[in-house]
């Protein structure tokens, strides 16, 4: 099991607002080397918060209440800043949603990538400059010598996201976390970026945690999928298995939305539960068409095995 590069155990994240919001409620999963794991769910289900928690970067008023996150064997929760700094950008790197605001507007992109190398002790200035050009070439940026000297605003959205990806793979991390990396881009560019991520992972055996609200996107890049709902994982399994035979009603609803091709319904009826309150039963029960009496009383547990799901109904069947 030394193949596991990311291990999350019973992660709980809370926001100290009034009232406090428990955004992530006991999430556990593992990611192996070279694996591509998709995290899907509606907005507010805790997927982005989980992503930030993987880097130990939950900003106040948010905080990790309990649980454990191990990146390449190193515990992130409660780690001293120096330890976290050593992990971030080196063992685990992040690609953010909006490359327009996520890059610093007043520094040349090459410099920003070089800084990521430099502060993790990579080479000297000259070799770093060469490495930056090579990275830009690898992410498919034409004329990389010149583009390295460009400012972010001089590049297109797709190019900027390629720069972010170059930054993410600069130190050949064990894991790249991509939080909605194509949501801010148009569809043709999205396809190119997905292809790029795919290629890079193939080549380097880097694991990717791919976060998206879009199941179609996830289906293109992932081997395994985690379905988040109300701060919990409600279903987990191999992509093909989950997509072919979804067990949780929420997954089914998401899938039928994504692949029905009908424009009539754009979301699942009802709203996710209020995460500032404790949840007695199944969080999806109020929106579920198979709701039984038991669903309101006891929370269903995520089972064991390769294909796990948290639903009383499916358990029985």
């Amino acid at each position, binding site marked *: 099991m030394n193949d596991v590069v990311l291990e999350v155990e019973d992660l709980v994240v809370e926001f100290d607002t009034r009232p406090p919001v428990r955004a992530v409620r006991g999430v556990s999963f593992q990611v192996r080397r070279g694996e591509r794991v998709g995290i899907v769910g509606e907005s507010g289900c805790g997927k982005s918060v989980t992503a930030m928690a993987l*880097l130990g*970067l939950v*900003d106040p008023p948010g905080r990790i209440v309990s649980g454990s996150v191990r990146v390449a064997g190193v515990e992130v929760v409660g780690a001293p*800043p120096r330890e*976290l*700094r*050593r*992990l*971030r*950008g*080196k063992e685990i*790197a*992040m690609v*953010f949603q*909006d490359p327009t*605001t*996520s*890059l*610093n*507007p*007043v*520094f040349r992109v090459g410099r920003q990538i070089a*800084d*990521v190398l430099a*502060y*993790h002790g990579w080479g000297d200035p000259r070799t770093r400059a060469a490495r930056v050009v090579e990275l830009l070439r690898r992410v498919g940026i034409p004329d990389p010598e010149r583009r390295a000297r460009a*400012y972010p*605003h*001089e590049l297109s959205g797709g190019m900027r996201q390629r720069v*972010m990806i170059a*930054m993410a793979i600069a130190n050949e991390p064990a894991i790249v976390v991509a939080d909605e990396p194509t949501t801010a881009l148009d569809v043709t560019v999205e396809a190119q970026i997905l292809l790029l991520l795919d290629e890079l992972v193939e080549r380097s055996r880097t694991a990717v945690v791919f976060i998206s609200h879009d199941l179609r996107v996830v289906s293109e890049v992932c081997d395994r999928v985690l379905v988040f709902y109300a701060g919990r994982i409600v279903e987990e399994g191999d992509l093909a298995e989950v997509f072919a035979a979804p067990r949780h009603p929420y997954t089914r609803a998401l899938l039928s939305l994504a692949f029905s091709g009908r424009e009539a319904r754009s979301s699942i009826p009802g709203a996710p539960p209020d995460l500032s309150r404790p949840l007695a039963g199944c969080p999806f029960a109020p929106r579920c068409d198979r709701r039984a009496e038991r669903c309101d009383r006891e929370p269903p547990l995520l089972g064991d095995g390769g294909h796990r799901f948290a639903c009383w109904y499916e358990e029985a069947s």
Partner: protein
Amino acid sequence: MRRLLRRRLLLLPVTLLGVTLVTFLAIHLIPGDPAEVLAGGPLATPEAVEAMRTRLGLDRPLPVQYLSYLGRLLRGDLGVSLFTGRSVASEIGERFPASLELAAAALLLGLPVGTALGALAATRRDRLPDHLARVISLVGLSLPSFWLALLLVWLFAVKLGRLPFGGQLPPFTEVPRRTGLVVVDTLLAGDPGLTLEALRHLVLPAVTLAFVPIALTSRYTRAALAEELASPHVRTARAFGLPERVVVWRYAARNAMLPLVTLLGILLPALLGGAVLIEVVFSWPGLGTYLLLAIQSRDYAVVQAVTLLLAVLYVLASLLVDLSYGLLDPRVRERG
């Protein structure tokens, strides 16, 4: 960038023309009459006042007066003081260095202290440094400068007797005038003891004046830096494991500097002309005291010339600000 420069330079004469009109009208709007003052004050006979008015050309219609003022201005003639009979240009030349020295000292003191205070406040929000910065800037902005001046004089000059006040040098000392900046002149004269004296005289007025830049820059820095520290690109820098000092002082500070440059453009001319009360309290022979005397005696030529000078400084400073924006922000450079 070049287009920006050209546009701003073309606009410059228009702005300056507007400035001359406003200063000209403003001085004629305030009540009082230099002819009366010159003819001997309230006791002067109406005939004497009238004669004086004719002699000064003040009996002509305002537009005519304005045009002749403008004509002289274009020839570089700032006019003659109604009271000393000396050229206003040379009088300003004598006074300006003292103000410049004071403003520069206040800025050299205020900028680092203000930015440091603001940065401390932004990185330690709602903790002691933040509260301290807030109190200092509140004091700096809300206490009248002359009151602050008197307070400092009372404490450091009277009570503690540590610092001199009044003038630029001890009584009956002089230094050969070369640059007009006393600190520099004493150095040029090769008299370090006197330089020390000049600096000691500079401390109290400069500290008093520095409260304004300290207050403004610390507030600006705090707001700008706090905003940058919450921005997505700073989150990126942190997510990639850059050390916090690099994140704050390089990645965030560079962006936060932009509004600060604007502030600097406003501050420098404001400090040059805005030290009137402080100059009066400290008997500082600068533009402020000069302007105050001129206003009191309705010395039109002097008031117009000094106001115009300050306005020109404002305009030039804001031009410099725009240009430096281009240097600091690649996005502006591009758009031009």
